[in-house]
């Protein structure tokens, strides 16, 4: 089977503008989906869910969210941690305030609330640009974390200042709380990720996506051809925050089950998600996946190699891990500044011409 587009004729514009124009890509896409939905849930255990899959799926949602804002609309944000916190605390308040409503609705609403907060903090983007905006979004980060820590209403006045996810069910299966089966944790995150990725893909390929990219590439020209910058930027902030809010809600309710805002949603989280999208590739949905996978799996893999195989002291491995991750980031950027997604595209391009590169 050759990886070719020759012979795969498109007879309509719909077919031409589909997500995977090359047949082979389409098959692979369906295969990945089939494995993700039909195979992995049956073989997965606690370790894989909690150490790899659930964090990967949740970070992928956050990365998609941030990629919409930063990769597609060009607004660099360092407020991701704060917005995830909004999602988490909104979800907690909804879960405890309306225990009879489905958790799925809570998570979506948490995304909606985060979207509103995100849009509000997006307002300065009309005046402030580039790194100045990035630093300005840190105001959101620090303020939100401080707020959730300070106002005890957000954590229902509990003495511990932590929020705990009570047990909730989807179709009779526990998805939050201590008794959640690993596959249920995995499935709810997977479903949310799949839906989010589809929505993101749809939004980015149509009118609104083009307005965002136009603003990103040249905001003045975009305005002159008819893009309302206020609307484009605020929708980018809102949509981005919606996804980030969902990821925050899942992060709290499904993954950790209990969080304290400063620890779980601090500034490191904002940086981490930003690293993911830059390493993965700005302006690419696939890049969001690749970046999240890279930064979730690599440290674990290095730890396994260093501690379990080579039997080195854990602290040495942890330090070496930093050195290696740092060096890899620089290496990748030198080799391919546009991230793993671009690396992937270039490989595919080569594959298309293989075995006749010229």
């Amino acid at each position, binding site marked *: 089977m050759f990886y070719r587009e020759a012979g795969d004729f498109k007879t309509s514009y719909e077919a031409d503008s589909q997500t995977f124009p090359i047949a082979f890509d389409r098959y692979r896409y369906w295969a990945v989906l089939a494995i993700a939905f039909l195979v992995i849930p049956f073989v997965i255990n606690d*370790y894989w869910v909690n150490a790899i899959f659930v964090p990967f799926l949740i970070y992928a949602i956050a990365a998609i969210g941030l990629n919409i804002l930063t990769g597609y609309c060009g607004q660099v944000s360092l407020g991701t941690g704060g917005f995830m916190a909004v999602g988490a605390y909104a979800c907690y308040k909804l879960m405890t305030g309306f225990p009879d409503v489905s958790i799925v609705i809570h998570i979506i609403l948490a995304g909606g609330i985060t979207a509103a907060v995100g849009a509000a903090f997006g307002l300065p983007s009309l005046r402030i640009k580039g790194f100045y905006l990035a630093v300005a979004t840190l105001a959101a980060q620090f303020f939100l974390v401080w707020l959730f820590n*300070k106002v005890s209403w957000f954590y229902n006045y509990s003495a*511990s200042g932590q929020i705990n996810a009570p*047990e909730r069910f989807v179709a009779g299966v526990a998805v939050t709380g201590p008794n959640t089966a690993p596959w249920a944790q995995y499935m709810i995150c997977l479903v949310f990720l799949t839906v989010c990725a589809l929505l993101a893909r749809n939004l980015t390929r149509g009118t609104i996506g083009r307005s965002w990219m136009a603003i990103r590439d040249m905001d003045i020209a975009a305005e002159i051809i008819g893009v309302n910058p206020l609307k484009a930027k605020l929708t980018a902030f809102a949509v981005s925050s919606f996804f980030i809010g969902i990821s925050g809600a899942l992060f709290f309710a499904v993954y*950790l089950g209990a969080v304290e805002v400063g620890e779980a949603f601090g500034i490191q989280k904002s940086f981490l998600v930003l690293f993911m999208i830059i390493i993965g590739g700005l302006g690419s949905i696939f890049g969001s*996946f690749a970046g999240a*996978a890279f930064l979730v799996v690599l440290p674990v893999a290095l730890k*396994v190699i260093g501690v379990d195989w080579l039997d080195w002291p*854990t602290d040495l491995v942890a330090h070496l891990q930093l050195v290696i991750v740092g060096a890899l980031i620089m290496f990748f950027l030198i080799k391919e500044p546009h991230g793993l997604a671009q690396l992937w595209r270039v490989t595919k391009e080569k594959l298309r011409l293989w075995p006749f590169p010229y």
Partner: protein
Amino acid sequence: MKMKTLAAMALAGALATGPAMAELVMPDLSYRTGPYAAGGTPFSDGYQDYLNLLNARDGGIGGESIRIVECETGYNTEKGVECYESTKGEGALIYQPLSTGITYQLIPKATADGIPIHTMGYGRTSAANGEVFNWVFNYPANYWDAASVAINYLLDENGGDLNGKKIALVYHNSAYGKEPIRTLEELSSMHGFELSQLAVDHPGQEQKSQWLQIRRERPDYVLMWGWGVMNQVAVQEAANINFPMENFIGNWWAGAEHDVTPAGAAANGYKSLNMNRVQDYPVLEEIKTLVHDAGNAAGDGSNIGKVLYVRGMYAAMLAAEAIAKAQDIHGTAAVTPAMVRDGMEALEITNARMTELGMEGIGPEFSVSCQNHGGAGQGLVQQWNAADGVWEPLTDFIAPDASVIAPLIAEDSAAFAAESGITPGCL
């Protein structure tokens, strides 16, 4: 996605190395890296060295050898979860998560998995109520005890009367830092002292505002719930404003050598609480000869005898005693986590036993029961001697005011039980 699959396969290979049975698996979730490494390293050294000593001297516990599985958390919650999941499969008997954040993750998980957690002087305070938190133990003392012990100490210093005194609490602006507030407020209305609260935002490198405020308000005493770099800066700033150091008392996570050494001689006289007395124990000699000289030291061996080293050792001792107790109760050397839990619940630490173990007076005497997972709640006050570079115990173990703390614990654990749908009861 492809890359992930590859990595996944690599990992699968790594994990396939299954647990070797008939060993006592003791995970050590340490943090030797990151911002709090200075505190995590000695604790982990002490924890591991003591268990290694048991292996070297006694062949383990009850004839069963101990296997330590160290996992680096970097004090990061997510890494902690990864560590828990990766070690639990090896048959871990007891967890010492060493971080409040990780503890909160593990409480529901470990409860569901049936593995006991020991959070010594940190974690969830209301876990002292063993009827709600069947699998969580926080003996010998918790933060609310600490607040009460500090006030009891000050009462003692002031002839039993704190009326009209001003006490300031400088705290890390996080769930941890806010722990003592409720207790102190209760105690303030009870004893008539005036409590002022000063929050320091994480990480706490810049505390000028707070210490200027203390300088203005001139409180009689300053209590501190600090962590990480906040401790060193606070000690320095207190010295800067010429606050009398003997009236400045940190809690037991703000009272190690590295908290005071950067300030040099200026830190002399600073006090802190401790849950384990630091002195020359015979057991330290044994560790030196049987563990360090044999080349089995967990770290570079330089931390032996330090406050947090001794605390790590104390934690390991309590765990080992609980395992021994479990072996006793169930009549088997190869205990399971559930058996260890029973051992912890039946744990009784006496002076005679501590002397026997070569650590006389390291902690208070206490016993654990199903109702009380919190131990005696006692703590002592120690003082920093900058000239000799040692922490000197000033007092014996001081009891907290149970009448204040018990209702608070009952209230909070009841709230948790209601929220999580737990029916309190003994296992």
